[in-house]
């Protein structure tokens, strides 16, 4: 007689969902950073040339992260992490630098913890966020 196991009894219809990928929050983080740059570019059109390429880089990161973890890039717009851009351009740049700094820390920790096949991508994202701080000076 075949042994009766817990799996047979209880788990046939409702398999437990696999744990979410640890990189999943970074997709949203990247989209949030892109949104923050776009919001500041809208508020301060004179910064648009500087902020546009950085927003595009964050969107490219989100796309690549989503591809690696096998999910679709969320189509609903992600809100910018900060509420409204500062009224003065210098303040807006400083706020973006702070966001990039926090983002660099996230990517650095993710790179340290990542399996080999993800380490290079996460390293590039950490480095990109560091270069953004330099570009926003």
């Amino acid at each position, binding site marked *: 007689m075949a042994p009766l196991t817990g799996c047979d009894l209880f788990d046939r219809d409702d398999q437990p969902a696999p744990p979410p990928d640890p990189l999943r929050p970074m997709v949203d983080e990247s989209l949030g950073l892109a949104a923050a740059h776009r919001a500041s570019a809208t508020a301060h059109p004179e910064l648009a*040339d*500087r902020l546009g*390429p*950085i927003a*595009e*880089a964050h969107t*490219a*990161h989100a796309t*690549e992260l989503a591809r690696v973890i096998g999910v679709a890039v969320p189509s609903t717009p992600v809100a910018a992490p900060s509420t409204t851009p500062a009224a003065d351009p210098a303040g807006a740049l400083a706020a973006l630098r702070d966001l990039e700094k926090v983002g*660099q820390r996230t990517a*650095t920790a993710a*790179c*340290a913890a990542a399996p*080999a*096949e993800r*380490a*290079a*991508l*996460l*390293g*590039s*994202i*950490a*480095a*990109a966020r*560091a*270069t*953004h701080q*330099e*570009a926003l000076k």
Partner: protein
Amino acid sequence: MRQPSAAEALATALSAEYAAIYAYGRIGVRLTGAARDTARQAEAAHRRRRDALVVQLSTGGGTVPPDRAGYALPFPVTDRASALRLAVEVEERTAAHWRAALASTTGADRDQALAALVEYAVRATRWRKTAGVTPPTVAFPGRPT
């Protein structure tokens, strides 16, 4: 493709550091003022990483690749503009070697590889700003294009 071992990846990074130091010798003489000082600091950073790698590889029983008398530059350095262009290129190329080392390393070695990738990517961005290149950033620093 087989993943290189940590020692192999670090040996490749060391060869890139040798080439970077050589290139900065050619870059520095074409620059003046603040840019020349920046080039000197960048060269010193590459020398520090070279020295650390030589120690790390030789104490770890790894192979230390030899330095060469000269390295082929991707284009002639004849003036300030070409010197700045080469400085960007040098930082991006060395960044790419450290990026490649990330997959082969773990723990402290990976932290060290990431620190180098970040530092060189930021330097490349500073050189682009000095040269007036826009945008001064790339989406995936160190990624082969």
